[in-house]
């Protein structure tokens, strides 16, 4: 009985803490539903008196969010595909062997993981403009994001491959499989979940990417939603309900995916980041 009360008290406390922590998110949703005058009321209302659902449709129309989100999607899909195609093999090799070369490779990958995008964007921008890559700005951003995020992906997926017993692969080789056959038929299916979760994490990051897009994409018709949100927020704006509606439309799909896959994402993240 006391065990049960203890659990209940702890759970109540935990929900309270989570509620405090997630308050900014709540505030975003609530502000998006407020009318222009209610937004600036003092004291502020913590529950909208008359929720205005129209705001979402209006902002979608007036800010042309369809185009922004489509660009975000193109960039995120491109970057995730490129990273997955290149990164999986690299992670596999780095997980399978233990020698000096693998240690050096791992060290280099870890070092590349830490380079801040806002510092790397200067040489990448100058180099890309000299090579003419900037004529295809979304492609340039995809390549830059891939170079930035691939190390993180490799570290996460490597942890997954470490958990695949090597005996299974060796058995397949003894049975006459080629290396390619054993990799595709045995190792990849066993590591599928980890690869998927890591790819989703990379996708989320790329979907919200800002520095490279802001610096390299000049034409508004090719910009992603992060840049769109940034240009929506002028220095003296007072359209906060519209801005929050923009942010809501942008972030809700990501949050939905995260809440659905939360357990897997958290365990995938923790297995790779520290171990």
């Amino acid at each position: 009985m006391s065990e049960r009360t203890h659990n209940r008290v702890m759970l109540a406390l935990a929900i309270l803490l989570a509620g405090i922590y997630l308050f900014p998110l709540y505030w975003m949703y609530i502000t998006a539903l407020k009318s222009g005058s209610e937004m600036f009321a003092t004291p502020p209302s913590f529950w909208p008196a008359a929720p205005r659902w129209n705001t979402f449709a209006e902002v979608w129309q007036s800010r042309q969010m369809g185009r922004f989100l489509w660009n975000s999607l193109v960039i995120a899909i491109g970057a995730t595909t490129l990273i997955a195609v290149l990164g999986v093999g690299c992670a596999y090799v780095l997980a399978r062997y233990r020698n000096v070369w693998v240690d050096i490779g791992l060290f280099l990958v870890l070092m590349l993981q830490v380079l801040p995008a806002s510092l790397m964007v200067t040489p990448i921008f100058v180099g890309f403009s000299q090579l003419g890559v900037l004529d295809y700005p979304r492609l340039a951003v995809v390549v830059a994001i891939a170079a930035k995020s691939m190390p993180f992906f490799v570290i996460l997926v490597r942890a997954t491959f470490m958990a695949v017993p090597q005996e299974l692969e060796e058995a397949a080789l003894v049975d006459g499989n080629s290396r390619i056959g054993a990799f595709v038929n045995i190792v990849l299916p066993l590591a599928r979940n980890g690869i998927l979760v890591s790819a989703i994490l990379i996708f989320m990051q790329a979907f919200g990417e800002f520095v490279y897009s802001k610096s390299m994409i000049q034409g508004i018709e090719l910009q992603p939603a992060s840049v769109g949100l940034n240009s929506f927020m002028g220095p003296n704006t007072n359209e906060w309900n519209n801005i929050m509606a923009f942010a809501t439309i942008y972030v809700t799909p990501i949050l939905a995916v995260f809440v659905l896959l939360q357990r897997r994402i958290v365990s995938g993240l923790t297995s790779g980041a520290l171990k």
Partner: protein
Amino acid sequence: MRRILSSIRDGHGFDILLVAFPLGFLFLMAGLPLIYNAVMSFQEVDMFSLGTFSRPFVGLKNYRDLFAQPETWPILYNTLVFVVGSIAGQFLIGFGLALFFWVNFPGASWLRGLFLVSWVMPGLVVGAVWNWILSGDFGVLNFLLRESGIISGNIFWRSDPQYSLYAVIIANIWLGTAFNMILLSVGLSAIPGDLYEAAELDGANAWQRFWTITLPMMRSSIGAIIALGLIFTLQQFDLFAAITSGGPNNSSNVTQYWAWELSFRQYDFAKGATISVIMIVFVMFASVVYVRSTRHEVRG
């Protein structure tokens, strides 16, 4: 040729093939820019010489000019305040939460995971939300602080030079706390439980157990997390772009934002590259610390 093909099918050629493309890609897209960056920091780069590789070398002139600028030292100091403030806040709150959720109760792990939404949200969205919360006249944070009697007048978080840097720090602490908490939870759950049972039998109280068991056992995790925190904090750009844009009058500017501003606002690519080189050397140092502190865990 057949030897190569069969090695790819059955031998180490397969591994080399798998690893050559990604590492080659990384070298082209991260290694070369790194070198190019260092080269540019010794060159004179302007809008006219941007398209050519043959630019005049000027030695250390960019570095000398940079440190002769009046805003350089304040911005470096801001970076220090930002890094220390963010890491301290993220770590302490994250550690507190991790200790709380360490007590096992139904729903603990699910609720704990929910905190990570702050980490998966796009940085620009986090910045936009905090920009509105921290607003001077109508911000909800000022309202809550006023109602609880902590402040008497509104704080203009974004436009008051005394507070603008802290506005970004607050948002960054919120953003990073969850990540710290999750990683610290992993470290906590790796401590064997019988240590605590033994200490309890010996009559150690909760405070003593924390200082003599939890903290020493967590040493390598804490080292790794602080190094990671340093790396992530120095990568933070989106919040500056979304909340203060480094202003007013550089009072909330930090090196990683300033480098971008110099390159893409003032088109002074050489100066941008110069700051980048200085900061990258610094970040590399932090990452060596990080790699070293996770090393024995990497080797498992």
